[in-house]
């Protein structure tokens, strides 16, 4: 928790961002990264950068990768796809990086793909949308689940509860829009009928009109809210204000403690698909993910004194996949590293178990999601 008067630490972190990329040396592995460290998507880029910094430091303390020191070069795109593209070119031409991790959001990732693909640089994106890996570009991989998988997970949970008539209320930001389209697309196959379909602007202050219409829809059995940022918190509070009785589902876009704080009491009873990271303490002893999840969480929280987030976890997995691939390849040769990432089998990360192949550059399935319910202001696993 930062107080008003603790700005000094924040300023030094900011200065740290600027100072990066200044120290070249010989025979090193250069990892480039373009992240939305500031700006509207900073809640993605900030923990991602912190995670990468932490991991690079740890790896170098142990002698680097293949015996060579690792240098991390991070540029801040401010969530601007044009800037991201410029930085991508700079990473390739000036910094001569070997591999790239990053692109916090889908827009900047898509803008950077051509630059890396043309220069044979393996690229692991940290952005959500399915279009990054479908169709497959041989140089491009990603670690976060897709929004389609989130829809499938939610719909499977609804079916298990015997609920099939769903109302959608989606944010019109990139994330909400994309997930709404995926949910509408996947619903018929999952036996779900979308009976109401409303939207709201990402900065809107009140969604009661849309929710009133959803509430008055005949046969409504549940409501799903694709979106992130403040929208879902306000939707959740309006939902309780209107006294809507049917279950409310949020997306993995709000899978952070921040959502519970913002929605307050109203968050109780909300269900959402999320990674094991959020419920690290509650994982069964026998859970295969338990070790990796708890150790990342402990390391991050000790170093930065703030709660770990799902998004930092994506960066953790991207770095570990890249590290393993560099070790398998035994060199920084682009094609060898690329093939090694594609050959990843059974890597157990904080996001889930990754099994890549030539036509699957994500390698996760919907089992990587846990269905969580908020009870008394805390996450619980729904069995």
């Amino acid at each position, binding site marked *: 928790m930062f107080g008003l008067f603790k700005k000094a630490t924040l300023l030094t972190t900011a200065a740290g961002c600027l100072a990066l990329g200044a120290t070249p040396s010989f025979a090193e592995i250069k990892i480039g990264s373009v992240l939305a460290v500031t700006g509207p998507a900073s*809640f993605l880029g900030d923990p991602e950068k912190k995670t990468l910094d932490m991991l690079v430091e740890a790896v170098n303390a142990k002698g680097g990768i293949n015996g060579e020191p690792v240098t991390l070069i991070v540029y801040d795109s401010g969530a601007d796809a044009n800037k991201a593209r410029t930085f991508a070119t700079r990473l390739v031409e000036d910094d001569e990086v070997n591999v790239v991790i990053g692109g916090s959001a889908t827009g900047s990732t898509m803008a950077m793909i051509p630059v890396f693909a043309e220069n044979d640089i393996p690229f692991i994106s940290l952005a959500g949308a399915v279009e990054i890996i479908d169709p497959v570009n041989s140089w491009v991989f990603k670690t976060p689940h897709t929004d389609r998988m989130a829809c499938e997970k939610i719909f499977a949970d609804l079916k298990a509860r015997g609920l099939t008539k769903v109302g959608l209320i989606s944010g019109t930001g990139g994330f909400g829009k994309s997930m709404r389209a995926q949910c509408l697309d996947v619903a018929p196959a999952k036996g779900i009928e979308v009976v109401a379909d409303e939207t709201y602007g990402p900065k*809107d202050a009140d969604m009661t009109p849309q929710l009133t219409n959803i509430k008055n829809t005949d046969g409504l059995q549940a409501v799903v809210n694709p979106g992130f940022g403040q929208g879902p918190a306000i939707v959740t509070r309006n939902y309780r204000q209107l006294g809507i009785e049917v279950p409310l589902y949020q997306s993995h876009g709000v899978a952070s403690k921040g959502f519970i704080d913002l929605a*307050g009491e109203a968050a109780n009873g909300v269900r959402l698909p999320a990674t094991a990271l959020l419920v690290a303490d509650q994982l069964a002893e026998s859970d295969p993910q338990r070790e990796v999840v708890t150790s990342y969480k402990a390391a991050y929280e000790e170093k930065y004194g703030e709660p770990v987030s799902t998004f930092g976890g994506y960066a953790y997995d991207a770095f570990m996949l890249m590290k393993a691939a560099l070790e398998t390849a035994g060199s920084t040769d682009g094609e060898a590293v690329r093939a090694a990432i594609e050959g990843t089998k059974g890597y157990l990360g904080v996001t889930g178990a990754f099994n890549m192949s030539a036509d699957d550059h994500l390698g996760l399935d919907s089992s990587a999601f846990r269905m969580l319910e908020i009870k008394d202001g805390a996450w619980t696993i729904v069995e």
Partner: protein
Amino acid sequence: MLESFLQFTFSGLTVGAVYALVALGFTIIYNASDVVNFAQGEFVMIGGMSTVFLRQDGLPLAAAAALAIVLTTVIGILLDKLAIARAKRASVLSLVIITIGASIFLRGAAQLVFDKQLHRLPAFAGEDPLTLMGATILPQSLLVLAGAAAIFVGLWLFFNRSRTGKAVLATANNRLAARLVGVDTAFIMALSFGLSAAIGATAGVLITPLTLTSYDVGLMLALKGFAAAMLGGLGNPFGALVGGLAIGLIEAFGAGYVSSEYKDASAFLVILLILFLMPRGLFGKKTVERV
């Protein structure tokens, strides 16, 4: 039917009161200097964010809110003294551009001094909604409406009943003439920025329990508040109040009865129509240029 209608109305009034509060902040500086202060949204943000952070540092809510308003007022006066007053010979357009620069600066500074997360405040009068004929409204919405009404009355009295308020209007009308009859125009400018910042900060404190706050909320609020002020007629407190509520209601009815896809479009369509037909807004004064 009636239930939905009432619910849409409550929603419109809630959102509209937020816009009206921001729009009211525009009126004073505009009246004093013809400058539209685009940093007005940042005053709202600083009011809300400082309250959140002062509260985290252990102050009770009321003290945190009061201190936040004072702090924002000081920032408003500094904005005048450090940026606007130093560019005194510049045209109104240049001054407007300075305020845009100031808003970007304040947003950046807020990222460093506070943080980049969303925050909220607890509702001042409880979270339980009040029910009227099946429709619900939060007590906080009523507080925001009451705040907008109180600030409106205060501004009206200030401009129409107090000497200082009339001096503000005189300064706007003709700065040289105002100075000749003994108005301290530099003081009036500083006073306008201070008051405007205080109003913005009050708005920020009142709306944060409803709309949440973060370092970048100012931009959207300034745009909607500016649209509300334009709709009502810039510089007229009554216009700001009506304009804000009107935009809120149009948005709510647009989302409820037409389509949530076109919610913003319906609001802007009405604004465009009014500005085409009544370029000075609903309650704007006609200005006559004497040659």
